[in-house]
């Protein structure tokens, strides 16, 4: 048994590969938050009046709110006055028109991450809106998208060029007062992505954004809004990595999805932020509010996430099934290693008639990590014939980690059919020995077992992302053996 423990410990110890800092001068606001900071952010972004008013309202709401404490995570108190709320690459004014004009150092950064932007964008046919720190610096394939009438741009651009759309939909899924972090985000959000797919249009390519946290001590407050008009279809990919840092970095994003009648949105995330070192030092605090609103009948929203990073993950991508016959899906793989803490899950709110939701959650814990699934299925009184199926599986690697499941169900209509299945399993020494006796190395064996465990979720990811996710999982657990 002791040899097993040693194995676990030595093998769990693997360094974060993407730990480096790109040396680009940042034009940051000094740390601290008050109304002047909110005004300064809005002014720097040359926002219209309505946007400033919206931010200020959010800021005032935030002042009245408290940090939530119900999640199964522990961390030292965050001093919100030690955070700088804006940071942009210095050459903000003359932003590059194409990749050729992009700061070569940034491109180098992407290379280190294994994201050759030109290659990837061209070969994979993926439009990339790269968010580097807070301001978008490269957008590709815009022309092809605009031919189809699809708007895909940074949030700041959307505020300038499509204020009517922003005003119509912003905050309608996640209101400013929704929760502490959403309110904070609403006040100080830096940038993010905006997508609008017009009626009846099938977006001709997967839309993809790479987020990256770079400037020291800068909270990141991304804001993403995706609107799929009637009968349209869009698939959106989000992937992130961050450089190594000693102090904890706060990240509080808000993502809002709106699916009108007959529309379908597929939102896939691979999240690989710095999780902290093997002693739990450093790492990103990730407090995210992601919510989709199936506003129209027969609409569908599908969340797929692979979460391997962050010191703390607090994230519940949710679906409001408002339209009749609407469908919500949540497929998740959450990996927690070393001292990582993940409290993640989903909410499915059934309002319309004959609405359906599926939840498949796979939690993997290794080292001393704690991994919690927290899911709510709520069937409102008017939601006749609602159906939900929840499957919640945990895999433990080693003996010092933990898995927790908190399913909540609130069923207010007797015609609802709700199913919940949960399992917990371990990678055993015997399974590993069996594989090794067949000539397969310990690491390959762990990868094989973990990938087998996650199969149901990976098959929901777009092809190119699925391979990446699988590799990421292998890297995250490299050595995590028990």
């Amino acid at each position, binding site marked *: 048994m002791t040899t097993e423990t040693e194995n676990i410990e030595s093998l769990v110890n693997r360094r974060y590969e993407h730990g480096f800092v790109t040396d680009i001068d940042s034009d940051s606001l000094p740390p601290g938050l008050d109304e002047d900071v909110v005004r300064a952010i809005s002014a720097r972004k040359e926002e219209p009046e309505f946007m400033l008013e919206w931010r200020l309202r959010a800021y005032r709401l935030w002042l009245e709110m408290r940090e939530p404490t119900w999640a199964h995570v522990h961390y030292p108190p965050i001093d919100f006055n030690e955070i700088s709320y804006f940071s942009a690459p210095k050459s903000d004014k003359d932003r590059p028109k194409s990749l050729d004009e992009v700061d070569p150092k940034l491109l180098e950064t992407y290379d280190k991450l294994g994201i050759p932007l030109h290659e990837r964008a061209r070969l994979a046919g993926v439009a990339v809106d790269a968010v580097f720190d807070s301001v978008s610096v490269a957008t590709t394939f815009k022309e092809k998208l605009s031919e189809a009438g699809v708007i895909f741009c940074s949030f700041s651009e959307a505020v300038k060029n499509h204020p009517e759309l922003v005003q119509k939909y912003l905050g309608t899924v996640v209101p400013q007062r929704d929760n502490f972090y959403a309110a904070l985000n609403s006040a100080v959000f830096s940038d993010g992505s905006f997508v609008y797919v017009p009626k009846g249009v099938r977006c001709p390519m997967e839309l993809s954004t790479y987020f990256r946290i770079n400037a020291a001590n800068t909270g990141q407050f991304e804001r993403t809004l995706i609107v799929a008009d009637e009968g349209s279809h869009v698939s959106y990919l989000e992937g992130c990595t961050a450089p190594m840092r000693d102090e904890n970095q706060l990240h509080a994003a808000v993502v809002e999805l709106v699916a009108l009648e007959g529309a379908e949105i597929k939102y896939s995330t691979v999240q690989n932020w710095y999780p902290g070192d093997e002693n739990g030092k450093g790492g990103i605090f990730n407090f995210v509010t992601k919510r989709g609103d199936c506003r129209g009948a027969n609409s569908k929203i599908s969340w797929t996430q692979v979460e391997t990073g962050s010191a703390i993950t607090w994230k519940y991508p949710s679906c409001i099934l408002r339209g009749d016959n609407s469908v919500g899906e949540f497929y998740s793989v959450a990996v927690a290693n070393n001292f990582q803490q993940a409290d993640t899950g989903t909410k499915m709110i059934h309002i319309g008639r004959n609405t359906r939701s599926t939840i498949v959650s796979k939690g993997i814990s290794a080292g001393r990590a704690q991994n919690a699934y927290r899911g709510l299925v709520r069937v409102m009184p008017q939601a006749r014939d609602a159906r939900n199926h929840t499957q919640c599986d945990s895999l433990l690697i080693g003996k010092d980690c933990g898995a927790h499941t908190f399913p909540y169900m609130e069923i207010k209509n007797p015609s609802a059919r709700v199913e919940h299945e949960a399992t917990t399993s371990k990678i055993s020494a015997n399974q590993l020995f069996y594989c090794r006796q067949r000539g397969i190395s310990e690491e390959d064996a762990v990868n094989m*077992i973990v990938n087998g465990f996650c199969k149901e979720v990976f098959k929901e990811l777009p092809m190119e992302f699925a391979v990446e996710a699988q590799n990421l999982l292998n890297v995250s657990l490299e050595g995590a053996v028990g």
Partner: protein
Amino acid sequence: MLEIKDLKASTGDTPILNGLSLTVKAGEVHAIMGPNGSGKSTLAQVIAGHEDYVVTEGSVEYKGRDLLELAPEERAREGIFLGFQYPVEIPGVNNAYLLKAALNAKRKHHGVDEVDAFEFLKLAREKMALLGMDPKFLNRGVNEGFSGGEKKRNEILQLAMLEPELAILDETDSGLDIDALKAVAQGVNALRSPDRAIVLVTHYQRLLDYVEPDVVHVLSGGKILRSGDKSLALELEEKGYDWVREAANA
């Protein structure tokens, strides 16, 4: 091929093997018999390299090399196969996937081109037909929900695919009905060749009716008490193990 000298091994503080010596030559089939707790399975596990067992004295040479220096996966790639007494279930991992990974790990180690999915499938189907196995087996999770007999057949399929030089089958015959036993025996006999050695660890004479051993050993108290030809197995069946123990103590 395999040369074990004065081997002592323990798990935790409990000594199990107490100076065991055994020589197995290429082309031979050995049967190791003995009562429960005599150390049969421990011997198999030590040869395969299970970390729960610590070798305290003695040596094990395999093809002229010190076997104890090699990690379990290296031993496997060098041609040692252990048919497990209790094959583990690995849910969600496709049987074919494991088998292909195992085959390719070995091929890579020997500098041979890895097989692709098509070659693999062709090979696997051939072997399965030979063993009378349903090809659907390949698409199931490794031993997931398999009956006892299916698990043992699966071990034999792996054996047939990997074509080891030294195969150790740890009570592969126990708990099998007669059809499964014949299938296992057929798989083992198909592997017999002048370049290979097979060690059958078993409780019963039954398997030896179908796979004829060259040498039979009686293991008791962590030592080999007696070795002989196949008639020894019949004698054991008739008289039990006490007889050998008494003879050894006399």
